[in-house]
């Protein structure tokens, strides 16, 4: 091919993964709804946690008669400051944003334009995963550290606030932040496998929030163990305050197991997304 060397016009620069990430970032950033949903959910998480702690002030300030058979009253700033209800909200919004970055392209047909421009589909999905993970890490960190430091600053006046160096706090804050990228990656995996908007969101809510409800019982160990393998249970375990009065119940997962659950779900979701998108017709 003597002819192809001459014109500089079609001299193709070496492909870089970074350019794919930059392209995906342009796409994510340009969708106003995504930015709004993410910003509002981060602010929402912080606001709900702050409000929860604020509402607890009368109880903290009130008298605490000793209950027979119970240890003295002890306010759990971690349990109330990194609440599970805002976490549920956060899991749904971040999971949906993750899912929509993938099935959104299928729904609009944009995926064909994308893959005609970049036939290396695995790299496209890897770039999406990278950008979404980075974005969710930032969002999760803001939501988590915002909730932790604001609520504990409020509690400082009551002398029940915690410091990030107190037992379990750093891990709890990290887990509360990481649930955002974990949920988003689960969303990407489900979006790739299902490729249908409504069905993906239903599956996402089911996986993240509803299925864990079915596996809470501890009458049979295997039921509890299945529950322990789900991201929500792992989050509950990782945000558990070791100094708390509450108990973990029978067959609790270990801290290490819970981190493995976070990592495992993320990894499997990414592998599923890459494999499925690479193989299927678009």
């Amino acid at each position, binding site marked *: 091919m003597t*002819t192809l060397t001459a014109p500089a*016009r079609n001299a193709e620069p070496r492909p870089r993964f970074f350019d794919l990430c930059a392209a995906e970032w342009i*796409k994510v950033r*340009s969708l106003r709804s995504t930015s709004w949903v993410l910003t509002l959910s981060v602010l929402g998480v912080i606001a709900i946690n702050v409000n929860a702690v604020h509402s607890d002030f009368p109880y903290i300030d009130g008298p605490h008669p000793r209950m027979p058979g119970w240890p003295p009253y002890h306010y759990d700033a971690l349990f109330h400051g990194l609440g599970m209800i805002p976490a549920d909200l956060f899991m749904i919004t971040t999971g949906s944003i993750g899912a929509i970055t993938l099935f959104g392209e299928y729904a609009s047909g944009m995926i064909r*334009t994308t893959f005609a421009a970049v036939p290396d589909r695995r790299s496209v999905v890897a770039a999406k995963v990278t950008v979404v993970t980075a974005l969710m890490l930032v969002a999760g960190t803001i939501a988590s550290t915002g909730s932790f430091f604001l609520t504990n600053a409020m509690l400082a006046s009551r002398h029940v606030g915690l410091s990030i160096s107190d037992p379990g706090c750093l891990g709890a804050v990290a887990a509360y932040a990481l649930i955002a990228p974990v949920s988003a990656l689960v969303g990407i995996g489900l979006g790739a496998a299902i490729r249908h908007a409504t069905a993906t969101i239903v599956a996402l809510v089911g996986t993240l929030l509803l299925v864990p409800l079915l596996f809470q019982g501890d009458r049979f160990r295997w039921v509890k163990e299945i529950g322990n393998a789900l991201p929500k249970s792992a989050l509950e375990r990782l945000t558990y305050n070791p100094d708390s009065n509450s108990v973990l119940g029978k067959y609790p997962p270990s801290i290490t197991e819970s981190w493995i659950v976070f990592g495992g779900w993320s990894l499997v979701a990414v592998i599923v997304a890459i494999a499925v998108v690479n193989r299927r017709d678009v």
Partner: protein
Amino acid sequence: MSTTVRCLAGVADGSVGHVIEVNELTKRYGSTTAVNGLTFTVRPGHVTGFLGPNGAGKSTTLRLILGLNEPTSGTVTVDGHRFRGHPRGLRHVGALLDAADVHGGRSATVHLSALARSNRIPLRRVDEVLQEVGLAEVARRRIGGYSLGMKQRLGIATALLGDPPVLLFDEPLNGLDPEGVLWVRGLFRRLAAEGRTVFVSSHMMSEMEHTADHLIVVGRGELIAAESLSEFAARGTRVGVTVRTREPAALADLLTAEGGSVRADPDGSLAVTGLDADRIGELALEHRILLQELAAHSASLEEAFMQLTADSVEYLAGESR
């Protein structure tokens, strides 16, 4: 335009580059066969029309060329390579498959910037192609608010982004106004003249008549014809002659005896096939029959196309029942 010269030089060197080769291509979706044993070649330097009625397998074939769908069997290569083997595509093949394959929430500038960035194409190229297709003024508006014609222009801009040697367009004239149609025709001819391979699908012969110089005609996923426009015009439909005379019965007998086939039309004229106008004139003169009108007419390309594809549709529909 310096690129023009260089491209033409490339083709003149006898390079076989930039050829689309479709070989025994078959694609089935469940029990439906969208493309069946299709074989053809699209060469550079021409606008090649890809014609067929709706559902003939044109869009499927274009998707197979781009590796968006995997063939059930057979191969398709561009420039000797499977398209999916390229890490980045825009500098190899530019394509407009469906103008709606965009996200309505983005602006044209953002849409093209993301694509350019993914292929390491300098961002100034985005402004260039937007200028070229006439969208520069609306480039920052949401694509969702564009008309179909504007979306077609954006799709063409996308195809041009990487300045590729091979271009695919699926029904690019849909939704364009007459000025747009003229512009697109000129653009396609220019791209071909620059030595590029231009492959344009359509279900309307009339659209291709003034644009393409080669045709690939498919029906129900199978190849019907692959030839130049003039060859295509000459096939498929018999050429007829209209004759008007005061002695139609005598002339009809005469022409039938000579091997012609004659039909008397209600207006008194004769429609003759199987004999050309010269021979009919000679016969009339020999037998001293006065002709008032002698007009040869060939079928239009549209008729040729309709007849060919109608045959294929009937035949295959009957078979599949």
